[in-house]
């Protein structure tokens, strides 16, 4: 009983490119950047309580950190005039401080001018350089390139490179509330929040959005990716704005948040990876980075403040999970995770074979072997985590229509309360994590990895994680029958959870247990030099890399399944 996936390409919801919010934004780029800079400036002023001393301190901190960054961590993408700019800031600051006779108001004015220069510079740097023509080109390169490779792989023979027998959609399955997201994208503004396991995710999501017929979403991409000019081209084409993780000063962060908030208010659909970075442990994100998420709530409140109370001003949060049998970067990620959590308890054994493959090699392998990816689109929610109906109305748990605006009211008026919105952001973060777990699809490979690791753990009850991963791999042997029984036990519980709507499964998991295990072992981390789980010649289950096994096992973390052992 294989499930039907979405295999057709959807009609675009907005046929005319000129009408795409991201195109409109690109057309008004100059004014938009100016507006962001000004708004960021006034936000920082209010954060510093309009106090010249505090503002001065913030300016000095920013200057100090920026000078340090330029010296210690320069990147190719950094503009040439950086040194010059910050020297000017320094000179200007010095001048104000030496004018001891100047009045408080005068000083404030001078500091404010410096602040304005900084936010303008940051806003300009963050802003995307979207060009519709580049977008179209990139999209066709991605689709064309991927499909050619795919056909070359699946249909034997050289000529097959020109065959259209298989399309990318056979490889990447899209499931879930796809109609809803398309529909709501024409009514309000979408903020998509996917799980993040691999660097492939942003390209993948970009492609999915275009398959679903939606105009491109804007998203924050790490500035480091723009170091490579070919990447920079693709990123710009996909509507990315730039996030520089080196800059942690108040002024930069506020400008970035303002940019995101204003873009949402402008009507640009956005994409946040709410985990902030790829999941190092392989677990579904449980703690989200709330900075950018808070901008969705702020934008929603601002729309209400501006009297946009109908669906056109509504912001919809759509969680998305991406499921892989295989994460290219897994060895590096799990090593990061173990050394961060284990500190002195973890030391990496030097092992050249466990390093990742090169991306090109991976792509060839990816298309020549059958490793599928599925993307599940969750139900849309309002910014408070309430589900919404077909018209975009928020519903409470009993299905009653409620007004999202009410969350921002006090004494009948929409009010700005940063502390309240901070709590709301926490709540939204929690709801997204909850939804991630519900729409997460269990693959055979997740099941076998989970069971494999838990059995090893159960056999060594006295060892903690860091002892476990140092067990000699050749000593670990799980008899097949025992493994199979444990798989059945876990799978039964997964189906129990599924009945309650707490998890989802891929169709291949409804085959016989022997087939599931076979499929799982074939697929789990299939391109790693050292496989997390295989069957040996006697038919027993063994591992070649227990850290990797732990990584893939973590995908089923958070469902209390380990209590079965």
């Amino acid at each position, binding site marked *: 009983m294989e499930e039907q996936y979405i295999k057709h390409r959807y009609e675009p919801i907005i046929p005319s490119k000129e009408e795409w919010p991201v195109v409109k934004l690109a057309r008004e780029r100059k004014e938009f950047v100016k507006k962001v800079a000004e708004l960021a400036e006034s936000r920082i002023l209010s954060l510093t309580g309009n106090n010249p001393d505090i503002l001065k301190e913030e300016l000095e901190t920013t200057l100090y950190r920026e000078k340090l960054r330029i010296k210690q961590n320069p990147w190719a993408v950094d503009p040439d005039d950086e040194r010059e700019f910050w020297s000017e800031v320094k000179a200007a600051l010095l001048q104000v401080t030496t004018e001891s006779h100047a009045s408080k108001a005068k000083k404030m004015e001078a500091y404010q001018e410096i602040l304005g220069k900084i936010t303008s510079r940051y806003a300009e740097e963050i802003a995307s350089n979207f060009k519709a023509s580049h977008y179209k080109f990139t999209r066709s390169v991605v689709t064309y390139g991927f499909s050619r490779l795919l056909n070359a792989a699946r249909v034997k023979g050289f000529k097959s490179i020109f065959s259209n027998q298989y399309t990318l959609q056979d490889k990447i399955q899209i499931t879930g509330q796809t109609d809803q997201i398309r529909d709501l994208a024409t009514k309000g503004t979408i903020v998509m929040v996917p799980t993040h396991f691999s660097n492939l995710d942003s390209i993948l999501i970009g492609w999915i959005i275009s398959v679903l017929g939606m105009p491109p979403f804007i998203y924050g991409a790490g500035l480091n990716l723009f170091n490579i000019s070919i990447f920079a081209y693709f990123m710009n084409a996909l509507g990315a704005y730039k996030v520089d993780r080196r800059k942690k000063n108040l002024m930069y962060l506020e400008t970035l948040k303002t940019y995101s908030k204003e873009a949402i208010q402008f009507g640009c659909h956005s994409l946040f990876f709410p985990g902030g970075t790829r999941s190092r442990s392989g677990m579904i994100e449980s703690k989200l980075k709330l900075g950018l998420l808070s901008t969705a709530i702020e934008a929603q409140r601002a729309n209400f403040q501006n009297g946009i109370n109908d669906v056109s001003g509504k912001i919809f949060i759509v969680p998305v999970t991406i499921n892989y049998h295989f994460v290219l970067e897994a060895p590096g990620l799990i090593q990061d995770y173990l050394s961060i959590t284990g500190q002195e308890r973890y030391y990496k054994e030097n092992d050249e074979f466990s390093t990742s493959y090169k991306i090109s090699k991976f792509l060839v392998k990816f298309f020549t072997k059958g490793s599928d990816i599925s993307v599940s689109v969750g139900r849309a929610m309002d910014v408070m985590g309430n589900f919404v109906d077909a018209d975009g109305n928020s519903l409470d748990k*009993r299905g009653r229509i*409620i*007004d*999202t605006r*009410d*969350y921002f*009211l*006090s004494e*009948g008026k929409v009010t700005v309360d940063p502390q309240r919105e901070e709590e*709301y952001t926490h709540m939204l973060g929690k709801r997204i994590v909850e939804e991630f777990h519900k729409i997460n699809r269990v693959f055979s490979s997740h099941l076998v990895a989970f069971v494999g690791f838990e059995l090893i753990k159960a056999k060594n009850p006295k060892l903690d994680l860091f002892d476990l991963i140092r067990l000699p791999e050749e000593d670990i042997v799980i008899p097949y029958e025992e493994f199979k029984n444990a798989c059945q036990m876990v799978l039964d519980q997964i189906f129990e959870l599924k009945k309650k709507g707490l998890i989802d499964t891929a169709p291949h998991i409804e085959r016989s247990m022997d087939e599931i295990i076979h499929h799982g072992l074939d697929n789990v981390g299939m391109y790693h030099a050292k496989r997390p789980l295989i069957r040996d010649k006697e038919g027993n289950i063994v591992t070649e890399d227990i850290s990797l096994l732990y990584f893939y096992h973590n995908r089923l973390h958070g469902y209390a399944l380990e209590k079965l052992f």
Partner: protein
Amino acid sequence: MPWRNSSKPKLVGVVGVGSFGAAIANMLAEKNPVMVYARKEETVSEINNSHTAAGRDLNPGIVATSSPEELCKACEILFFMIPSAGFMEVVKNFAPHLHPYHLIIHGTKGLSLNLPGGESLETVKSLRRSQILTMSEVILQETVAVRVGCLAGPNIAKELSLGHPAATVIASKYNEVILEGQRLLRSEKFQVYGNSDIVGVELSGVLKNIIAIAAGALAGLGLGENAKGLLISRGMVEMVHLSKALGGSVQSVIGLAGVGDLVTTCNSVDSRNFTVGYRLAKGETLDQILETMEEVAEGINTVRIIDAFLKTAGIRAPITESLHRVLFEGSSIEEALQFLMKFPFSVDIDFV
């Protein structure tokens, strides 16, 4: 016409007119018009006609209703002042009429259970934290209201109605809820503190009821002040550990809602929980005591829930455990006391 609405101050709602509910309604009525909710029609007409509730005097400005809908429409801020046993049901009745703009502050010092259908405390094998709900968690689970707070502290209703000086803690994750509570309740005789650790403050109020029963028992046995000092101090340590295990912070337990309330309740012959312990020590059984009590002693139910949680979580809390044996397992007070005196407490304070 909106300008007319804004000039007229909104009503403040109070749900429940037991002794504490009535006292709070009266305090609120000093500054703002108040509407109270009572389930029984007789109580409603008693309040509206003779300005008393079960014989307690109410401010003549207070109006009463038996309709959750009317109360929710008239008020933006609601004080829920009902015993924990009926809390879930009342909240469910209110849920269809509540909107996200409502602010809710409750004053209930008890716990509720969230068990799968058909299960009860007797049948369930284990009790996890997720199955225990504080009252604010009940509100968050059952309604769309999110701006929720609680009221806790040494607030004996009788003394409040006499106008003696007192103070309370309003705890909420939202500053606006704390500020609103302070604005409505604060007076020359009543100080209001804020705390952002709502679960910790709720747990303080809940857990101190256990110690209050034990204090009553010591008094009933006539064991004197040394024993009481010992109990209060060990009781506080137990509260800290339990509160931490359930998600509260140490700070809240040593604040007004924790130690403050603990000392008051352990010295108060009017406290229902204290009375339960006192009468137990005088040789009555739990059933005999319950037959003659007008309002519920929250501590009894709390002991049962916490004891079940202890068994699941595998932690020890000697005072709670021995009370559970006395209340539900047929142990005598003397045996319990002996157990406590033999229990190997070794360190005085191990949590700061």
